[in-house]
C-alpha cells in the first residue's frame, strides 16, 4: 500500500508536491503496534520520526516518584512524534506508548530524512517550517490544558 495518500494528510508535509511526497514515501516503513507496546523510552538515543496512520499513542514523562509516569498528551491519526530528534538530535525527551491495538505507524530514519532535506532544500524548508508550527501547536495545547482547573 502506498503511504503517499496518508502523507498528503500530514500537516508537516503540507505544501510538498506529489513528487516530493514520493521522495518522502521512499524513506518510510510501516510499523504496527498494540496496547502497551513501548515505541521508545525517555532518554533513549533517538534516530526516528513517527507518523500515526491509525490508532492512538500516549506520550509520557517520568516524574520524581520512581516508576511513575505522567501522561502529557494523546496523539491520534495524522500526528507526528519523535520530531524533536529531527531538530535537535538530543535523546528522547519523553516516552511513547501505544494505547490502541493495531495502531499503524510510518517510521522514517532521521539521518535519511535530513539527507533528503539537504538534497532538496525546498522539502527541507517546508518540512522544518511545518515542524516548527507543529511544535507551536503542541505548546498551545499544553498552555490551554494548564488553564483548565483541576
Amino acid at each position, binding site marked *: 500500500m502506498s503511504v503517499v495518500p496518508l502523507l498528503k494528510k500530514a500537516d508537516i508535509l503540507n505544501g510538498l508536491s506529489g513528487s516530493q511526497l514520493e521522495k518522502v514515501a521512499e524513506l518510510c516503513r510501516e510499523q504496527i503496534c498494540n496496547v502497551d507496546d513501548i515505541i521508545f523510552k525517555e532518554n533513549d538515543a533517538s534516530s526516528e520520526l513517527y507518523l500515526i496512520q491509525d490508532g492512538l499513542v500516549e506520550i509520557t514523562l517520568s516524574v520524581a516518584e520512581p516508576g511513575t509516569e505522567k501522561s502529557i498528551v494523546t*496523539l*491520534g491519526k495524522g500526528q507526528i512524534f519523535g520530531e524533536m530528534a529531527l531538530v535537535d538530535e538530543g535523546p528522547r525527551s519523553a516516552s511513547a506508548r501505544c494505547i490502541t491495538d493495531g495502531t499503524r505507524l510510518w517510521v522514517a530514519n532521521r539521518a535519511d530524512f535530513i539527507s533528503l532535506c539537504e538534497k532538496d532544500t525546498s522539502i527541507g524548508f517546508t518540512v522544518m517550517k511545518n515542524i516548527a508550527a507543529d511544535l507551536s501547536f503542541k505548546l498551545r495545547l499544553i498552555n490551554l490544558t494548564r488553564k483548565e482547573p483541576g
Partner: protein
Amino acid sequence: MIYKVSFVVQGGGHPGAIQNMEKRPEKGDRVELGNKLYEIVEVLEIIPSRGEFGYLHATCRPVEK
C-alpha cells in the same frame, strides 16, 4: 479540508489529545479519546488555516458510553 484538533478535557482528568479529523468538529459532537467518550462543548479556531489544514481547539467534557 483536514482539521488538526487539540482536545482539552474539562476538569483536568485527561492530559489532552491531538488528532486530525476530516469533518469539522462542532459543539455537541461526541469523540472517543482512548477508550473514553467525551462531548465537545466549545470549538475555537486557534490559528489561521494554512493550505488544506485548519487548526482548531475543542474543549470537551466526559460522558458515559
